[in-house]
């Protein structure tokens, strides 16, 4: 005479389950259903798409050539011709801000993908094989994790030298210190997935370890990794700006918001526009990706429902 029914809990279940009871819903279709209705996600995505368009074809958005500057005009305030004023070098701030989107978004996306892949694969290996493989990989992750990230990246980029500094060096410097976070999450998710009954069942049926990890464990462990990678996007974008600000990241004549802030800081209190506008764009970019990350987490983490 066991507890048969959960009638009281039923109404709390997902509203969609009622409508389409025939089809079993996967985590992904449920998540997608949630996302499409989440205002935070929609606003964040709209901003992000606009920013990505800016990054792909800045010429369409920017009224002037960001590199055609006239020192005579330096630090002019806001005007109808120069919406965001003119910076210390006499360049149009608005055009430079538009062109700055490319590197920010490129670094953010690439770093997220690199950390996701490296941390994800190593986490899968550590979680799946366990034992000494796990011990070695986990300790290695701890070693990298113990180094403060901005300082570590500062050192790595200094070692590379300014001449070689560029998008990829910044991406790697950020990724080298960030992958352990993904490894931890992937490893934990794999270990949880591994102990589920269906994996035991697959093993009992004689499925090969590779097949088990690809078919049975990965789909269930990948959700938390996607969540953390999305949420990290904003962190990496801010990280690039910080490193460029410190002078070890993106180098002139490339345009980076962090670099623009660094260039404008000396005369910031007299002429705030050249600093404030890249700062605002940087914040909006981070905000849009944080919003997406938040929404993705809410959609993919069933515990929070």
């Amino acid at each position, binding site marked *: 005479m066991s507890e048969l029914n959960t009638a009281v809990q039923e109404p709390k279940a997902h509203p969609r389950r009622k409508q389409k009871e025939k089809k079993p819903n996967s985590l992904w279709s449920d998540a997608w259903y949630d996302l499409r209705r989440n205002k*935070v996600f929609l606003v964040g995505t709209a901003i992000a798409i606009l920013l990505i368009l800016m990054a792909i074809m800045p010429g369409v958005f920017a009224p002037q050539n960001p590199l055609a500057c006239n020192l005579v005009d330096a630090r002019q305030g806001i005007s109808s011709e120069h919406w965001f004023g003119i910076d210390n070098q006499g360049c149009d701030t608005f055009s430079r801000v538009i062109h700055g989107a490319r590197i920010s978004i490129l670094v953010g996306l690439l770093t997220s993908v690199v950390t996701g892949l490296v941390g994800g694969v190593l986490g899968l290996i550590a979680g799946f094989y366990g034992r000494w493989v796990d011990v070695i990989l986990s*300790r*290695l992750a*701890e*070693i*990298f994790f*113990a*180094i*403060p*990230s*901005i*300082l*570590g990246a*500062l*050192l*790595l980029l*200094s*070692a590379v*030298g300014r001449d070689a500094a560029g998008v990829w060096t910044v991406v790697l410097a950020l990724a080298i210190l960030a992958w352990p976070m993904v490894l931890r999450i992937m490893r934990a998710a794999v270990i949880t997935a591994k102990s589920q009954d269906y994996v035991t069942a697959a093993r009992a049926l004689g499925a090969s370890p590779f097949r088990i990890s690809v078919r049975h464990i990965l789909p269930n462990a990948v959700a938390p990794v996607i969540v953390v990678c999305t949420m990290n996007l*904003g962190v990496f974008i*801010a990280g690039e*700006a*910080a490193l460029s*600000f*410190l002078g070890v990241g993106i180098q002139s004549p490339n345009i980076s918001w*962090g670099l623009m*802030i660094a260039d404008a*800081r000396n005369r*910031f*209190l007299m002429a*705030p526009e050249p*600093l*404030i506008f890249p*700062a*605002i764009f*940087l*914040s*909006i970019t*981070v*905000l849009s990706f*944080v*919003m997406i990350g*938040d929404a993705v987490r809410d959609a993919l983490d069933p515990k*929070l429902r």
Partner: protein
Amino acid sequence: MGRYVIRRLLQAIPVLLGSTFLIFCTVYALPGDPVMILGGERRIDPVLAAQLREQYGLNDPLIVQYWNYISGVFVGDFGETFQGVQVADLFAGKFQVTIQLAVTALIIEALVGLGLGLYAALRRGRWQDHAVLALTLLLVSVPTLVSGFVLQLVLGVKLKTELGIDFFPISGTEAGWRSFLVPGFVLAGTSIAYLVRLTRTSLMETLRADYIRTAVAKGMPRSRVLGRHALRNSLIPLVTYLGADLGTLMGGAVITEAIFNLNGIGQQLFQSVARRENAVVVGVVTVLVLVYLLANLIVDLLYAVLDPRIRYE
């Protein structure tokens, strides 16, 4: 308990060795010859250069250099710069500034984060809750780089010129503890947001627990149910987060120090990288790794104190 501490300490050693070795290798790979950079514009006499290299062990293999260095660190000797200044002495003042900054940030974080988080949890689902959550979104999104300059302009300059309030210094440490208020808040920014959210979810989860229902059924007044039964349980993850965050704050202080012209270790590291003062660079990062590991160890112990289920495992 004693065995637990010892086990945790032993586990921290390979991490410490690994991290510092990594830093050592990176510093070793920094471009340029430190001895030549020491000379600056002047060409250094090759005989003197060779002598210096010998004296500082720069001709030894990397691993030997590392071993000489790290064995010194364990007895508190961080080596000396090429100018003959003891690195440990150089650190003293700088670390004090960074620690003051990080501790101020941590206090602000704890007060604001716990306060807003508890408030949001108790107003769950109402407009106050939504407002707090929107605020955290904003806090997470504004990088230190931005909030630092903006607050410097608003609190340090506009407040003084427009309203005549000169309470927040915007540069240096002359004004004592007040100097650290704005930088502390800037440094804590993102952490505050995470702590608010963590506090909110933690308390909400606790309030759903069966033992809270029991406490109500025991006829405990609401204040006691919240203040004794719920808070004690929700605090466990929060203390963990705060403890671990001290290391993060110290390591992340470099940007804040640069904006507010605070002469802490971040600034020191930045200068020393440019001057190729390898001993200082490695020293700074080693100490930060130590702080991180120590903070985590303390957190683990606190965890055991707060949650009796851990203690007896």
